[in-house]
């Protein structure tokens, strides 16, 4: 299918750009072997890795072997604890996935119904209250909301733990912090998308056929209104991951984000490089998943062979 081919090519292009970017930035800043290996390493080991990673070869050969190393999961060694960088990062993936997934769920569960309500009662006081709340919601910096929540629920009311990830109670505040801003954005997109759908002729047709209000909403309005919302959601995954870095740091949540902040602070570049490439992969995959959902929600996309523009 042409549509899928184009999407796959796009994804491959993005991955290629990211890897190339990392490759050149690493080399622009000095000897990658010295950067990717611990500082106190002896000369013989350094030479061994130079040889192994092919750093003595011409640049284009290095480029090829860089790709080869990546395919073998060889991202260098974290100089902080001499662990394989990939293993170190991989260990953190489930924590970030749990936080991000819960936040996304919160965003959808709060944002979609509020957006639908605002659209159904457009220009009423309810609409105004929801939309004003939404503006406040997405203007709220993540780190500030997190700190306010800690102040209120951990330090004042002593209801929730302020850091760590042991129990479900630990998940509540970080997920809310990460989720509310997105809930506000989703509410806005859902509202404008619903308003557009509600005035379409097929909505009138559905009513004249005798479909009840709930059926019209669930069967006719929602599937059509959710198409742009899903698209936006795809673009927002990157933003979500960016904010996860901040949220994880505020709540000492042991995910990739906190590892990244720490690794950047101590310049543990092997770990930073590994996180970058795993993130790029995540982005590419989530975009592909969104494209697939998109095609499933809106069959015209499949026929249109990727001519849909953003």
């Amino acid at each position, binding site marked *: 299918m042409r549509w899928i081919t184009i999407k796959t090519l796009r994804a491959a292009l993005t991955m290629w750009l990211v890897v190339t970017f990392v490759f050149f930035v690493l080399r622009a800043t000095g000897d990658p072997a010295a950067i990717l290996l611990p500082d106190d390493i002896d000369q013989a080991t350094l030479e061994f890795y130079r040889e192994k990673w092919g750093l003595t070869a011409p640049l284009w050969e290095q480029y090829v072997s860089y790709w080869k190393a990546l395919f073998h999961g060889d991202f260098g060694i974290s100089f902080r604890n001499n662990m394989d960088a990939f293993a170190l990062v991989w260990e953190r993936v489930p924590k970030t996935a749990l936080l991000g997934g819960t936040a996304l769920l919160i965003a959808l569960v709060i944002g979609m119904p509020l957006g639908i309500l605002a659209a159904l009662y457009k220009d009423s006081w309810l609409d105004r209250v929801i939309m004003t709340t939404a503006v406040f919601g997405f*203007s709220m910096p993540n*780190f500030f909301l997190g700190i306010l929540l800690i102040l209120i629920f951990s330090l004042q009311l002593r209801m929730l733990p302020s850091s760590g990830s042991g129990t479900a109670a630990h998940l509540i505040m970080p997920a809310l912090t990460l989720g509310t801003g997105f809930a506000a954005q989703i509410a806005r997109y859902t509202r404008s998308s619903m308003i557009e759908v509600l005035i379409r002729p097929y909505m009138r047709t559905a009513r004249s056929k005798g479909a009840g209000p709930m059926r019209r909403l669930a069967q006719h309005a929602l599937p059509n209104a959710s198409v742009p919302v899903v698209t936006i959601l795809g673009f927002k995954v990157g933003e979500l*991951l960016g904010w996860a870095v901040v949220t994880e740091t505020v709540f000492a949540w042991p995910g990739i984000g906190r590892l990244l902040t720490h690794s950047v602070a101590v310049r543990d570049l092997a770990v930073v*490089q590994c996180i970058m490439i795993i993130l790029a992969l995540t*982005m590419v995959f989530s975009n592909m998943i969104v494209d697939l959902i998109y095609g499933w929600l809106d069959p015209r996309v499949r026929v249109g062979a990727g001519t849909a523009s953003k």
Partner: protein
Amino acid sequence: MTALPDTAPRATGPSRVLGKLSHVPVMVLAAMVFLIVMLGVTFFAQVIQPYDFDYIDLMNRMKPPAPLEGFTWAHPLGTDTLGRDLLSRLLVGAQTSMALSLLGTVLGAVIGIALGFVAAHKGRLWDEAIMALVDFQAAMPWFIVALAVLAFMGNSMVVFLALMALFGWEGYARITRGLVIAAREQGYALAVRGLGAKPRWIYIRHVLPNIAGPLLVQLTINFPNTILFETSLSFLGLGIRPPMTSLGQMLGEGRDYLISAWWLAVVPGAVIFFTTLSMSILGDWLRAKLDPSLEG
């Protein structure tokens, strides 16, 4: 110059501005006032500040802000662990954050608009290459790319500012390209071309003013994001670092004293929040004004 006779009795000067403002919703007015104050701080922080922002007063450590018990009028917003005046630090921190974000937003806009024009004008390969870059930039979370670049290159003001400038340029590029392609075929552009004007002249003199509205709206979307970008990085200790200060840096520092001196984090956090909020409110209002067909 002689004034032309005005047939309709219209108010002029300040009263006319006031008349126009009376139609503006209260929330938007409040947002405007707040942003004007922030702009004032950006330019005059050193004039207003009661103390030097780094002045250490160990006799007055951890003083609470004004209405709270134990405050002193010498430090209306209180002091931090070293007895530095919070108000003075706030003014200078806000100045740094605002100046950097304004500069970053403007640079990003210039880069984006220029590339958008090039893509629309040159077409073909240029267009493809620039749009591929736009897609790449939109696909990668720039905040995380910035973290990686700071790790690779080390933290310096030049790198930091470059990262802020490159943040969000793709939005301007995409909008400019689309609008230019659409505007080029409109009557006024064709007419000027017919008169023999050079393409660059047409773009700058005629097309740019005509597409300024949507670009301005993009600016109001980009600016709060840029300020959040700066404050987040500084909050993590990876952007603006002591001895300099910014709103994010203050918040990050204050986070360690939530139990003993919560205001050290809450006050700068509130300023960041009200800045982004004001800009969003203003942006929404502008968008509705400039394009009534847009909803939400």
